[in-house]
């Protein structure tokens, strides 16, 4: 087990933070800022350098060092900042991030507890320096690596050489001279007649020697042993993280019996890294267990006291476990959303737009799975905003707006749902274009663009294949559009709404359940079947007996909170035969669409696990998935807005 393994998670966590600071500083630098942010970026590069060196990740430390130097030159005014330089620095920051991940995943550069020096020695530098020149007449080559912590390595090298020279003449060394930057790795070349064992002993007698390898010079022509794989930061190691850990085994492991561990690392740290898949499976399993538990509880209602007692205890324990597992899935939104400022910046650059982007609510916690699912959708919305919504500098100035487009992403926590808003101050959705496109596609449209409401605009925009881009930009290409976004969100049990004001801007609002694993739902009965309606979509539930239903023409209304809510009878929607009274209604609202959906009865509140299904296109689009109810029966999950 490596000496520094316990620091691995801490190192990674701190390095990520510093990478964040670094990126923010660079973006700040780009938008003309400097000073504080630049200093912070410089310090972060410096800190990462130090930490990486401590962990033995020399390649990462080297990258960080270069970055630190360049930032220092900027700070001291020796170098001017221009967009090309920023691009380079951002690319270097990306390289640094990759290098850190590779080094951590590959396990390279970490010490072996038995003797720190050999491990570091094996990992440090190349096994065969490419410019190794074997002098004529040399028969043996001796690779010597000094202990990592050996002071004044060049001086020690002299002593080692002298010690070896007492046993055999030295035909040459590499490097030829030991300068101030000598890193402790050297080669001695020895003419025929030397005794390898005595030579090795003499070298070790020089002191502070971690590694001695005596070999015939012919061996140098062969390809290097697996020791190279231990060099972290190499692109190859990055690609096969597990392969990197194994690759380090042959050269070093053979000598010291080290067993690198792939997969789950026992670090003794406070945090453990686990495959995401495992966490998802665990949550799924817990959810199923919770349902079975409830069935057991129901069934044990008729059992004897002893059994009841056990079941009760089990039930408590299962619910506790559930809370723990759900807790494991929650992370602050920033963990995933911090990637977005870079995406916005790169997109704006490639489209020739100038954008100021703000991220609000980074600290709000969400289910990690939802976050990951959301990222793609948000990137699409952001790209659309930059591409279509925000005008270029000239147009904005002509419209009396600040020259740089303003784009905000807000994460807002409500009681049982999360709201994510993307707001821009661009030209808003172009209703004329949308109507024209809809007509071209044969979709129903209002008479004139002015009559196209926000919700209808969104509905049209969400039609498959509906892209109003005149040219297919490389960023928001044809076909990858709002339909994918909206469907994704609906499949998560959420909804999308749009508010757009001509010339002023647009806001997309996503509403999502707090956690995917378990969704709170109302269970309703229509006819012989029960359905589940996610609470995120329900504003309130009504007891129809008490409310007044009025009819105006073809439409029925129920009056509530001073408003008339149009009624939709689900019996009619589902085509269920009419039997018995309809006693309840659930009120659903999204933007300016609202209605009261009438059902036969409200059965109750449940926690369900939504399993989405692949429905045939166009069919069943009022259902967003299927779920298991507490009694084990399956039920369709209704998306109430789509019924209106």
């Amino acid at each position, binding site marked *: 087990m490596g000496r520094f393994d316990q620091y691995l998670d801490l190192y990674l966590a701190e390095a990520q933070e510093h990478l964040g600071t670094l990126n923010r500083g660079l973006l700040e630098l780009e938008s003309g800022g400097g000073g504080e942010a630049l200093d912070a970026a410089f310090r972060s590069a410096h800190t990462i350098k130090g930490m990486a060196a401590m962990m033995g990740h020399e390649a990462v430390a080297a990258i960080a060092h270069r970055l630190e130097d360049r930032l220092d030159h900027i700070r001291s005014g020796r170098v001017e900042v221009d967009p090309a330089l920023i691009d380079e620095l951002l690319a270097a920051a990306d390289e640094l991030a990759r290098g850190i991940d590779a080094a951590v995943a590959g396990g390279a550069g970490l010490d072996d507890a038995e003797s720190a020096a050999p491990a570091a020695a094996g990992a440090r530098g190349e096994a065969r320096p490419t410019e190794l020149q074997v002098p004529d007449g040399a028969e043996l080559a001796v690779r010597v690596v000094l202990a990592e912590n050996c002071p004044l390595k*060049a*001086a020690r090298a*002299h002593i080692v050489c*002298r010690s070896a020279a007492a046993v055999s003449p030295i035909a040459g060394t590499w490097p030829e001279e030991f300068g101030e930057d000598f890193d402790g790795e050297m080669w001695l070349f020895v003419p025929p007649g030397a005794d390898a064992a005595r030579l090795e002993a003499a070298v070790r007698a020089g*002191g502070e020697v971690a590694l001695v390898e005596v070999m015939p010079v012919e061996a140098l022509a062969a390809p290097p042993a697996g020791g190279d794989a231990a060099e972290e930061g190499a692109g190859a190691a990055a690609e096969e993280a597990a392969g990197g850990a194994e690759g380090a085994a042959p050269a070093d492991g053979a000598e010291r019996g080290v067993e690198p561990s792939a997969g789950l690392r026992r670090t003794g740290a406070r945090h453990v890294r686990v495959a995401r898949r495992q966490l998802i499976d665990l949550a799924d399993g817990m959810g199923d267990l919770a349902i079975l538990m409830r069935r057991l509880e129901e069934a044990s209602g008729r059992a004897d006291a002893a059994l009841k007692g056990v079941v009760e205890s089990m039930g408590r324990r299962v619910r506790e476990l559930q809370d723990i597992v759900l807790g494991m899935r929650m992370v602050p939104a920033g963990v995933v959303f911090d990637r977005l400022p870079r995406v916005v910046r790169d997109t704006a650059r490639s489209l020739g737009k100038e954008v100021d982007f703000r991220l609000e609510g980074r600290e709000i916690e969400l289910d990690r799975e939802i976050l990951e699912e959301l990222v793609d959708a948000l990137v699409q919305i952001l790209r659309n905003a930059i591409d279509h919504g925000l005008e270029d500098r000239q147009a904005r100035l002509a419209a009396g707006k600040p020259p740089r487009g303003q784009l905000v992403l807000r994460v807002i926590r409500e009681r049982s749902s999360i709201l994510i808003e993307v707001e821009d101050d661009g030209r808003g959705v172009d209703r004329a274009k949308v109507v024209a496109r809809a007509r071209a596609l044969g979709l129903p449209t209002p008479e004139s663009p002015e009559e196209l409401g926000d919700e209808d605009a969104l509905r049209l925009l969400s039609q498959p294949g509906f892209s109003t881009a005149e040219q297919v930009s490389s960023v928001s290409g044809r076909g990858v559009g709002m339909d994918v976004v909206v469907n994704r969100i609906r499949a998560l049990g959420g909804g999308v709404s749009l508010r757009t004001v001509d010339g002023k801007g647009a806001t997309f609002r996503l509403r999502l359940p707090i956690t995917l694993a378990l969704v709170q739902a109302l269970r309703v009965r229509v006819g012989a079947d029960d359905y589940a309606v996610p609470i995120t979509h329900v504003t309130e539930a009504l007891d129809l007996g008490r409310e007044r239903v009025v009819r105006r023409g073809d439409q029925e209304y129920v009056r509530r909170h001073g408003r008339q809510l149009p009624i939709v009878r689900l019996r009619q929607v589902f085509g269920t035969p009419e039997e018995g009274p309809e006693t309840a209604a659930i009120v659903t609202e999204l933007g300016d669409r609202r209605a009261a959906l009438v059902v036969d009865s409200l059965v109750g509140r449940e926690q369900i696990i939504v399993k989405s299904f692949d429905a045939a296109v166009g069919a069943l689009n009022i259902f967003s998935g299927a779920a298991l109810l507490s009694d084990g029966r399956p039920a369709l999950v209704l998306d109430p807005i789509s019924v209106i």
Partner: protein
Amino acid sequence: MGRTVLICDDAIFMRSMIADILKQAGFEVVGEAETGAQAVERYRELKPDLVTMDIVMPDMGGIDAVRQIVAEDPDAKVLMCSAMGQQALVIEAIQAGARDFVVKPFQPSRVLEAVQRVLG
């Protein structure tokens, strides 16, 4: 027979420290020197088993002293005591005949290891 040592450093504090470390290892401090010139003279008189030599001293520095001592006695066993960042000078001292070196601030264990190597 105990092993004898000549300690050369221009600072009393350093000489005391080194003396303490070596005495604990069984050495007998038979002489001290404050300058390179003194070091050369005392060596001729005492012919100690071991010499510890500071690099920077007034009136002939440690490197020249080593060179002279080794010229007069090729078997002389000299251990250089250097501060951090004096690598070039240490290398020079080695080339002048010093057998090994320790770096200040030194830990007793390292000193004793180095002494071990020097005395073989």
